[in-house]
């Protein structure tokens, strides 16, 4: 790979060369900037850490849902939409990373013992951490250079892990609340629909392939 291409993919990770993509990143990061600003100026209410932590987690989930919605929406909104799937995936990762940062640094004060105990003993934190750890390799490989290096097929296979991460994220949200709330149920429902769409499509494709093989 040429140095120019490397530099290009490096900048693509941050902002992208496409103006729409760049705008999506800028607008997409605005809630984070806004929440941190409110937090640092003491405008996040009585429990600012918790409010910030939850807001960041919720935005991560929102971007995951949008990312998952791209494929089913392509027939309606045009195939070019796929260009922005990676943008939303990376936004989801950035928010998940900030969410984890707030938990580790601000909430737990980097108390390793408490954090390890939390991850091992608290199922909702175990599941949440799993979701985040899955997103890490996906984010690292979300650039043109890595796609070329891995090859399209392997890359696609790897990135199917986002389905697992989405399920884990939805379950994490359902488990963190003390009782049935509307929001976690809504996100679990959206993710379920988006994954079932893929499952149905896959089943159909397989059935077609089987019948073709028989014919």
């Amino acid at each position: 790979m040429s140095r120019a291409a490397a530099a290009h993919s490096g900048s693509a990770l941050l902002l992208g060369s496409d103006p729409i993509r760049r705008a999506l990143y800028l607008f997409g990061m605005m809630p984070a900037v806004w929440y941190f600003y409110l937090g640092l100026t003491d405008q996040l209410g009585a429990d600012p850490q918790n409010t910030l932590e939850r807001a960041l987690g919720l935005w991560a989930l929102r971007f995951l849902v949008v990312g998952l919605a791209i494929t089913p929406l392509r027939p309606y909104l045009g195939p070019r939409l796929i260009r922005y799937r990676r943008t939303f995936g990376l936004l989801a990762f950035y928010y998940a990373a900030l969410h984890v940062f707030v938990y580790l640094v601000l909430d737990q004060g980097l108390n390793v013992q408490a954090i390890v105990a939390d991850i091992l003993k608290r199922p909702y934190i175990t599941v949440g951490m799993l979701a985040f750890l899955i997103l890490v390799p996906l984010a690292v490989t979300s650039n043109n250079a890595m796609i070329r290096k891995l090859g399209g097929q392997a890359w696609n296979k790897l990135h199917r892990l986002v389905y697992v991460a989405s399920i884990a994220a939805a379950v994490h949200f359902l488990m963190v609340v003390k009782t049935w709330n509307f929001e976690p149920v809504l996100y679990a429902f959206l993710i379920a629909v988006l994954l079932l769409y893929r499952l149905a499509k896959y089943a159909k494709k397989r059935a077609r392939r089987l019948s073709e093989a028989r014919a």
Partner: protein
Amino acid sequence: MVAMLIKHRPDIAPSEIISRSVYLRRREFLAGFAAAGLVAGLSPGFLRDAQAAPMKGAPSPLSTTDETVTPLRDVTTYNNFYEFGTDKGDPAKNAHTLKTTPWKVKVDGLVNKGADYDLEDLIRDIALEERIYRMRCVEGWSMVIPWVGIPLASVLKRVEPQGSAKFVAFETLVRPAEMVGQRGYFQALPWPYKDGLRMDEAMHPLTILAVGLYGETMPNQNGAPIRLVVPWKYGFKSIKSIVRISLTDAQPAISWQEQNAREYGFYSNVNPQVDHPRWSQATERRIGEGSGLFVRRRPTLMFNGYGDQVASLYAGMDLKKFI
């Protein structure tokens, strides 16, 4: 006996603990809040302020006076009161619809003087006290609140429990027309919200029925017009907007235990050694402490720091079992 319970001398008024200027500016906070609410098409702060009337209580030796009192704004805008929604900001937004006058409290069960009492009659002539207590939520945060109230024991003596009464059960109002959380598809809990105490817990001098805070009548979002405060137990035991007090011989069902028996027990004493299944109870975040995002957790104390007064109630009980 009371002398034995004295832990700190009540020589500091809450108005001195938070700076006096902040205390005097509390209405500005409310006004600011009302303005914010009006922008959003709501006016909870304004209504709360219009409803608030002075409600002073005499200082009590049972108050916790060595800690900074949580700002009124935080006490009245960060609430778990699922009858008005599950978000902690919901009660401050939605509770203004609750009508607290007239207010009846049904007293029934194993009592000699069971009746539907007007609230004024139930608490008439019982001296109001100011009780500054720590409040530890089961979710891992805490506050210090200057309540105004009366000992629950005084009210119970008035209604004359029978010898066979071993427990006191409480119920919160059910009035969907005024409580938005009791309407619609997503209702957090089965209503009415229920809680209960063992008789000795109910009769303990620390246990109060609160009718105000910060020297004013109880804000709706904090459980107006009358609520329980049991400072050594997790906050959800301090049931709000009480309409029924029943004396029973069997341990009453409580809402959170019914909702999830694995996670919540009848006693629910603050205990840093017994974790909630989903999170640790070893530490807590004190609301209003620190600046902005930087709040350090503090260790949670056994019985929320009231062990000297209440540990004897549980002598011989395995508190890992009786959660």
